[in-house]
């Protein structure tokens, strides 16, 4: 379960952010996780929960996760494709059969935080 390592990386960035913005606590964190990032959202929330005991900085922090669909693009046909969670992903253009470029859906980002 690599979500444990990802949760630790999130906490590291939060510690830096807390310090550089002179915050006493972080109340909310918004994350963006692509459905093709390889991260299972429930497992990540579980891993973050497990870290609350040892990492005071997230003891009472609320985590909101925005899941982003896979968005892909055919350069030749100038056509956009979107795949949702649990939908079969086919990265070939349905007109010209050429490989699609993935534009979104693989990212793992911290978007913003709220603190005091």
């Amino acid at each position: 379960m690599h979500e444990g390592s990802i949760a630790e990386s999130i906490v590291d960035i939060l510690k830096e952010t807390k310090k550089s913005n002179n915050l006493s606590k972080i109340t909310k964190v918004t994350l963006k996780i692509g459905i093709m990032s390889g991260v299972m959202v429930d497992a990540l929330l579980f891993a973050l929960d497990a870290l609350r005991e040892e990492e005071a900085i997230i003891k009472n922090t609320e985590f909101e996760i925005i899941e982003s669909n896979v968005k892909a693009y055919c350069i030749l046909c100038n056509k956009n494709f979107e795949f949702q969670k649990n939908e079969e992903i086919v990265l070939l253009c349905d007109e010209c059969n050429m490989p699609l470029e993935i534009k979104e859906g693989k990212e793992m980002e911290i978007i913003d935080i709220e603190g005091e």
Partner: protein
Amino acid sequence: MKRVVIERKILERNDSSAQRIRALLKEKNIFSLNFMSSPGAGKTTTIEQTIKALKDKHKISFIDGDLETDRDAERIKALGIDTVQINTSGACHLDANMVLKALDKVSLDCDILIIENVGNLVCPATFDVGCDKNVVILSVPEGDDKVKKYPVMFNVADVILINKIDLADFMDFDKEKVKKEIKEISPKAKVFEISAKTGYGFDDWINFLSDMVKKR
């Protein structure tokens, strides 16, 4: 209450280590491969056969990632290859920081660096370890339904080796279905059918690899 916009990649530290690895290997003119697969798909045997085919022409170094033991590293060391073992002690994948540390220990007087990741078809796909090419092995006994079950791993593959192909007829393994699904999830990946045991398909795979090393 204060809102701070961050917009930072969660794995930025891993990614910057991966960039340092790329820069270092480029400076030394080393071509690098990251082998990934489920446990038991034949990574070590495939790497052994690949090394045997190339070691007269190329200097090769090897980094092995496993949870415990140095069994795989010992097999590669027996071929006269400089090897470094990373024991992740429970972690299910290698990350770029682990590889960067291993680069301090392994000989960089080589033209090919082979990394064998932890056997796992899920987690290693998320962590860039700074290699030129990702090689994913799918073995016939795992079944012909795995490509769409593990799309993230197959999507990051530059090369897919379908190993133990000599067992395909015994296992009702539908090669055409697998190739079609690879095309759909990883359209740019180069696919080879091989058997690391019998040597089937190795000529094509080794020629392709030699070409990539030449063009580095």
